[in-house]
């Protein structure tokens, strides 16, 4: 009797978890399919290689926005990852007393600041005084947005490393810093990196801060000190335009953005699988 009940409960729970999994996965596929149907199927090589066509003309591409997004995210990573990572190491391994809990609280607050507010702030500090929009300002705004999550994921994953591993290393004569660098961080690095990836994917789609900082540009943006196009900002402008061709391009840009995020994720996972295999 009890046996039977157990079996039934087991089957029910198994199917429930299965249904939920299928549901979540299918949402992703529906979004991908929708993007594809509405625009990405018109994707041509031109989209990746050409500048936007002059207003009113059909065709053209978003090569400048793809490169622009790449540059913005590179800057964001260069700012967000080191600050977040080192801050997280400090909080997890060295922080005692009142200061770290203050830092933690501030970080959570910063994480809750709406992106448009970060945009205005970046505008006030980095754009207005210099009288021009720039890639630099955009990248810094996105980088600041990355810091809280980068910091908290680093901290959480480092805290997850068992104390016994730290003791094992220190019992062999490793200093605290050495223990952290050679045992604790390697043990947590996969989690930290995937957290950073998610963080990057999150800011990759941010539009509001870019409208105040890198503005947008229908041409190439050489260097780091000029306004630049970026995919989310192009999607915004193209989607609210009156032209059908631009709508299709907005969908295509959405598809490309999503594909890039997925690609970064997959590459990161492959790299991680390789390194973890080598490291054991």
């Amino acid at each position, binding site marked *: 009797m009890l046996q039977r009940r157990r079996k039934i409960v087991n089957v029910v729970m198994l199917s429930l978890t299965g249904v939920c999994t299928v549901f979540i996965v299918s949402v992703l596929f529906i979004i991908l399919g929708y993007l594809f149907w509405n625009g990405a199927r018109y994707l041509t090589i031109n989209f990746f290689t050409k500048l936007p066509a002059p207003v009113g003309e059909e065709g053209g591409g978003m090569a400048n926005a793809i490169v622009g997004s790449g540059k913005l995210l590179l800057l964001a990573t260069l700012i967000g990852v080191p600050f977040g990572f080192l801050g997280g190491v400090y909080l997890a391994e060295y922080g005692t007393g009142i200061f770290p809990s203050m830092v933690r609280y501030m970080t959570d607050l910063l994480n809750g600041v709406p992106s448009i507010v970060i945009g205005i702030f970046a505008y006030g500090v980095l754009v207005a005084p210099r009288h021009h929009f720039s890639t630099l300002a955009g990248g810094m705004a996105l980088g600041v947005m990355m810091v809280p999550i980068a910091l908290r994921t680093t901290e959480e994953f480092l805290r997850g490393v*068992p104390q016994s*591993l730290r*003791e094992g290393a*220190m019992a*062999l*004569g490793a200093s605290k810093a050495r223990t952290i660098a050679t045992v604790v961080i390697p*043990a947590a690095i996969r989690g930290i990196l995937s957290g950073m990836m998610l963080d990057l994917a999150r800011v990759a789609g941010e539009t509001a801060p870019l409208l105040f900082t890198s503005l947008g540009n229908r041409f190439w943006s050489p260097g780091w000190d000029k306004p630049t196009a970026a995919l989310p900002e192009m999607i915004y402008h193209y989607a609210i335009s009156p032209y059908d061709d631009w709508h299709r391009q907005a969908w295509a840009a959405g598809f490309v953005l999503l594909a890039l995020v997925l690609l970064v994720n997959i590459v990161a996972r492959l790299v991680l699988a390789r390194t973890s295999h080598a*490291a054991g």
Partner: protein
Amino acid sequence: MSITPEPETIVGSINQEPLTSSGSAPKQAETVKLSTDRLSFHYGSYQALHDISLSFYANRITALIGPSGCGKSTFLRTLNRISETIRHTRIDGQITLDGEDVLALDVTNLRRRVGMVFQRPNPFPKSIFDNVAYGVRVNGLARGTSVREVVEKSLRRAALWDEVKDKLHESAHALSGGQQQRLCIARALAVDPEVLLLDEPCSALDPIATAKIEDLLFTLKDDCTIVIVTHNMQQAARVADNTGFFLLGKLIEFDQTEVIFKNPAAKETEDYITGRFG
């Protein structure tokens, strides 16, 4: 290096007062390698150790026995000061290694000299090879030897080499619990410690591996002072020269193993050894 007197000629002085180093020493002629003097330890406000005075003799094996929770691990962990890594703890009293004040020594140097194998196996999430090589890499290597040689030698000494020689670069976490414990022993041996602290090293091992580890302890005696915590009376009787009995954070009795097991002075010791409590 030291003279071993005949067991019969020595009479340990045993009482329930905090033992003084002269009173507790079973043998006068031996060199004291490591000793504690009125050592107390607090976890926060909880006092886990009370005035422990105890000497470990060079090239001897000392067993620490006592019921669960009596402070054996805590005591062991003060000896290499790994206890300091836990917040809100306090050590009082004195620890002396080769005449030097342990509490004043550079802690990384101390831990290189005083190796430790923990109660629960704690291999690093690295390859088997990198686990054993870790201490060597951290401390720098003796001249003229290669990391590979040290790793092989250490694994052989820990009776693990034959089982892992074909998978040195696989993850240490793929090993069984007993293999992991022997890996931790190998890891500790790789840095050639002067004192080796073993916290129940055989609790996860089968009788064959246990026998191998015990053999290893006998060979290690030549260049090492060994302290072993064990719940296994037979093991203590087999391997240890001296034995200390702990109860509720106090050292009740410390003497030659033979005396402890055949003719203990304290009633508590006798009760524990004959299995009447604990």
